[in-house]
C-alpha cells in the first residue's frame, strides 16, 4: 500500500489519502478595517521559507509554528525522520543542520532559512548505503526500527565530532537517543564497525 522507498509515487496510500482529505488551510485575511498605514501582522499568516534538504533546495509557505520535523515529514514528505516524544527527550527526530546533529522537533522551520539539512534519506548515495546504515544492518542494531533513523544520524555526527573513541564514550555521546527495544549493545557495535569508514567518507 505505502511506498517504502518514499520517493513519492502516484499510487494511493494511507498517507496520501489522509493528506488529500484534510482541509487545506486558507491564507488568513488581515483583521477588520484598519486605519493604520501598515496592516497589522497576522500571526497565522504563513511565512515563506527556503532551505536545502539533502542537497536539494526546498521552498514552502509555512505556519510559523511548524517544527522542522513537521516540515520534513508533512510538507516535504520525507518521513524517515520520526516523531518520538515531540519534546526533545528521545532523539528520534535527530537530523543534521549544517552538519551538526540537532532535534528537529524543537527547531522552528522558519529559523532554518537558508541552512543545509541532512536527513536519513540523504545518507545513501543512490543505491549505495552509508557505512553506518550498512553496519546497523550487519550488527542487528534495531528491532522495531522507530528510533533507528535518529540513531543513525546521531551516530554519524558522533563519529565526526570525534566522540566514538571507546565503548564508554560512544554510550555517553549517544545518550541523547533512546531505544525502547534496548538495541544499545548492537548500536555500539555498529558504530565501532562503521567509524573508520564514516570518518574517511567525509
Amino acid at each position, binding site marked *: 500500500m505505502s511506498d517504502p522507498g518514499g520517493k513519492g509515487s502516484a499510487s494511493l496510500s494511507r498517507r496520501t489519502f489522509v493528506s488529500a482529505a484534510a482541509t487545506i488551510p486558507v491564507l488568513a485575511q488581515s483583521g477588520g478595517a484598519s486605519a493604520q498605514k501598515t496592516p497589522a501582522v497576522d500571526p497565522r499568516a504563513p*511565512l515563506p521559507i527556503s532551505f536545502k534538504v539533502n542537497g536539494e533546495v526546498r521552498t514552502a509557505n509555512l505556519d*510559523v509554528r511548524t517544527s522542522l520535523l513537521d516540515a520534513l515529514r508533512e510538507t516535504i514528505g520525507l518521513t524517515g525522520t520520526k516523531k518520538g516524544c515531540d*519534546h*526533545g527527550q528521545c*532523539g528520534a527526530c535527530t537530523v543534521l543542520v549544517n552538519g551538526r546533529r*540537532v532535534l528537529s522537533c524543537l527547531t522552528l522551520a522558519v529559523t532554518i532559512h537558508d541552512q543545509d539539512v541532512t536527513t536519513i534519506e540523504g545518507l545513501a548515495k543512490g543505491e549505495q548505503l552509508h557505512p553506518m546504515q550498512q553496519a546497523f544492518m550487519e550488527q542487528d542494531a534495531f528491532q522495531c526500527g522507530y528510533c533507528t533513523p535518529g540513531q543513525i544520524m546521531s551516530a554519524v555526527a558522533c563519529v565526526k565530532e570525534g566522540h566514538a573513541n571507546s565503548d564508554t564514550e560512544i554510550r555517553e555521546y549517544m*545518550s541523547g537517543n533512546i531505544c525502547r527495544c534496548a538495541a544499545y549493545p548492537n548500536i555500539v557495535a555498529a558504530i565501532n564497525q562503521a567509524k573508520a569508514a564514516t570518518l574517511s567518507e567525509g
Partner: protein
Amino acid sequence: MRPFIYSRAADAPDAVRNAEAKQAHYLAGGTTLIDLMKLDVIRPDTLVDINPLRASLSKIELSGDRLTIGAFATMAEVAADETVRTAFPVIAQSLELAASPQIRNMATLGGNVLQRTRCTYFRDASYPCNKRAPGSGCSALHGVTRTHAVLGVSEHCIATYPGDFAQALIALDAQVELQGRAGSKTIPFKDLHRQPGDQPQIETSLESGDLITGFIIEGGPFKRSKYLKIRDRESYEFALSSVAIALTLDGDVAKDIRIALGGMATVPWRAVDAEKMLRGKPLSDAGIVEAATTAFAGARTTPNNEYKVRLGRQAIVRALREVRAMEI
C-alpha cells in the same frame, strides 16, 4: 501551540527594539522555549529570533586572568574548548554533563542560564501553579516532590532550579553582560536569579527586553575545580544533587574555596556558610563533613525530598575529597 508573530533581529539593539511587545520572547536555541510553548506554559505574542546574533557573540577568550564567553556560544562549543577544559574544568564539566549532544549543539549559554524549572506541576497547565498562574496555589507542596527544592523555598513555591552551568558561574563569582533599553550593563551573576518568596513568577532581575550578551569570570584560572552530578540515570538527566567546586590549596590549607549546589535550591546556590567554615584552614575530612552538614542547615523538606539533605551532604563530601586529591 498558540499563534505568534515571528521577527528576526539583525543585531542586539535591533533585538531589544523588536522585543517592545509585552509578551515578546527571545528565541535562540529554543530547547526550553519551544518545549514550553508546546505545553502552553509559555505563550508569547511575539518571538524575536536572535540566532543571527550568534556569529558576533560567541567568542571564548582568556586574557590574563579574565575569561569572557559570548552568550551565544553553544554548550557544545564551550564544553569542547581546550582553554575552558584545562583552565576551568568545572565550567566544561557542568556543560558536558548536561542535556544531550543534540541539545548541547542547539542551546546557547544565555538561554541555558534562563532555563525554567522541571517541576511537573509547572509544566502541566492543568495544575494550579503560583509560578505559571500567580496566586493559583502550589500543587507541589502537597504533591509528588521527589525532585523539588529544599533550599531557598517558600510556602508559595518549591520548584528546583535545574541548571548546571549556573552553579559553575555562581561558584566562580561570574558577571553577566546585558543589553537593555537603557543600553548595556554588567551585573553579578548571583544577582540574576530571584528566590520565589511570595512572587515565584518573577524568576530573574531582568527587565523587559534585556538580552544577555556575555559572561565574565575573573581571577582565573581555576584548574583545581570539578562538577559532580548525581542523578537517576548515568546521562541525559537532570541532577538530583550536584556540586560545583573550585579550590585553591596552599599546602593543605584551603586558601580559597567555592561551593555551589545544584538540584537542591530554587535558584543557583552558593554554599556560603560551608565555605566560611573551610576557608583559610587545613582541608581535613572532619572539616569537610562538618561544612557539608552546615550547607543544609536551612533546608526545608517535604516527605518525598527529605532524602536530598543526606544525598546533598554526601555529594559535597565526595566532591571536596576528589578536588582535594586532584593532581594539578
